[in-house]
């Protein structure tokens, strides 16, 4: 109990409360399709963090794939398509 007290005191001293952390974790959790789809409210913080790490890695992989594909596409795309997009965005 004393440890808890001291911890809260300490965190309060550093300007960050446990509540803030919890809220951040919750927000992070909402970004994770894995956990979000599970619809169980109670997810441990470590689980959220683990999923976040996994998710970030997967996103990295996706980005890699997509960038590769995009570069490929851009290289091969014809001018007509590019023109359409250009006109679209520069309206």
């Amino acid at each position, binding site marked *: *109990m*004393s*440890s808890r007290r001291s911890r809260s005191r300490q965190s309060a001293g*550093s300007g*960050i409360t446990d509540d*803030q*952390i919890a809220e*951040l*974790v919750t*927000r*992070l959790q*909402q*970004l*994770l*399709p*894995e956990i*979000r*789809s599970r619809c169980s409210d109670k997810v*441990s*913080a*470590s689980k959220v*963090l*683990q999923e*976040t*790490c*996994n*998710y*970030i*890695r*997967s*996103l*990295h*992989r*996706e*980005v*890699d*794939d*997509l*960038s*590769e*594909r*995009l*570069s*490929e*596409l*851009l*290289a091969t*795309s014809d001018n007509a*398509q*590019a023109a*359409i*997009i*250009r*006109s*679209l*965005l*520069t*309206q």
Partner: protein
Amino acid sequence: MDRQYQAEEDFRSFFVYSGLFTLPVWIPKAAEGTEGQRTGHGSRDHMEAEGVFRSKSSCSAAIIMPLFELLRTMRSKPETNPAPSSTPADPSPTPGRDFVELVWEDGQILAQGQSQLNRPWMTSSNTGLVQPRNCSEAESGQKAGNIRGLEFGQGEIGLGKEGNAVPWLSYPFNGSLHCDDFCNDLLPELPGIAGVTDCRQHLGCNTSDSIRLFENSVGGEVAVAEAGPVQPGNLSPDSSALQQQQQQQQLWLPFLSYRSSILEDAGNVKAMAAEDQGRVCWNEAENGQTGCVATEDGGIMAEEEKIVDNGTSSVCSANTVERGTCYPKHCSKRKSRDDNESDGPSEDLDGEPAIEKTRVSSHPRGTALKRSRAAEVHNLSERRRRDRINEKMRTLQDLIPNCSKADKASLLDEAIKYLKMLQLQVQMMTMGAGLYMPPFPHTGIGVGRVIGYGGMDLNASNSVARRPAIHITPPVHGAQFPAMHHGTLQRAFSNPGQGIPMSMPKKSLQPTSATSLVASAVSRHGAAPATTGSSSMETVLGFFTPTKPNPVCPRDQPPTQSGALRSALETSDTNMMGLGVASMASYRK
């Protein structure tokens, strides 16, 4: 009384025979229940509680003591009980049973005398081998030094020494003084004294008249024992009174011993005298109601000071109250021993610092045991959990580029932003890829949506973090992709757990031109700033250029690939990509 004694004997016999040397920590219920039990001497509850308590204490003492020691002590002491020789179990309740707390600390076993005040429970040394020397000392009557806390080197602990174990029973009071935080946590503060019971009942049987009665202080602080053993004349070792005094001293000693230095050898007599004085003081204090018993440091300090003044070292004197609470143990038995034994240990003690109240690795019995175990388990699991989280945090920090944030909150914040950015990036790139699927109008729809949801929002608010999760519908139905792109996109979306939440629009909107849709999306979000211009192109290029800090998978993306993309962007002059990346760039701001 019969019942109490019986219980005591049973316990003792049990432990002795079982050969347990480890002393289970016992928390007397009486201590916890103090208030309610404090009723009166005569109240049955009270009596029972004490009986239990006492029996425990005796048990502990018995346990700690080696059998032969126990036997010897018992024999030596005719007064206490008949038939000591026969079995250890026999011992009638002796007035002075001390409890010494043996704490395993840093490889050394520390015997701590516990003040009654704080600790309701007794701790025992972990190893059966440990034989506290204190016993011998206690016997000699110098108890003070001994009890105080002896540090036993491990070597010292060896069987060869015949120390008597001095188990001591702490009495829970307010619980502030000596108790460690740990103890405090575990133990509820006890306002009243559990031990306040009548001395007469317990002590009286064995002990001589010296201890007459313990009175419960009204304050509930401590029962005051008015005892009168303090008589210099009693010093003669033989007299039972002396023994009792010694016992008392022993009991108290632990209490005071913490701070005070130990007596010199000389000391039996001195100690005794000091004790007497101390007692007197104590008694006086009691009268004043201060708290001799009181758990407050002040009271204790005062006592110590008095003692010091008297010339005695650490020995605390009076302890009627404690005595009452502690319940006499084997000390009385020990008294039989002479000064000789005592001298050795006392000397040792002199050099030693006061006992530290360290976190006791105690093995409390009963509720205390449960509680402490629960607490330990909780602490352990809590620590593990924290370690796990911290580890994940570090991993997360590694995954987030350019994240120098040290504290958790900002790291999490960063992670959220980065995650959103990544999701957006994937959307944009997917969209971009989809955009280039020439024949499919549906693709355009998807793009428009993506931009409307993600890109514009990002540009507008420039604070990704505050937005709720971005719900982006996948722009393209996988099946609609041309064969050449199908595989890749499928890969991107194939893993629902990894990828973007998918809601595949089976029924797409009217096939319209991508242009109009995107435009509408932009206009719908009014904010549609034109970050997407040429500057955005720079962003794009910078984004994929390894030379600049690259928020996106800096490691994984080979420079050649970036170069290829860059060249592709340059050649195709796609502002669309610029739009997407511009939003990503906002993350970096």
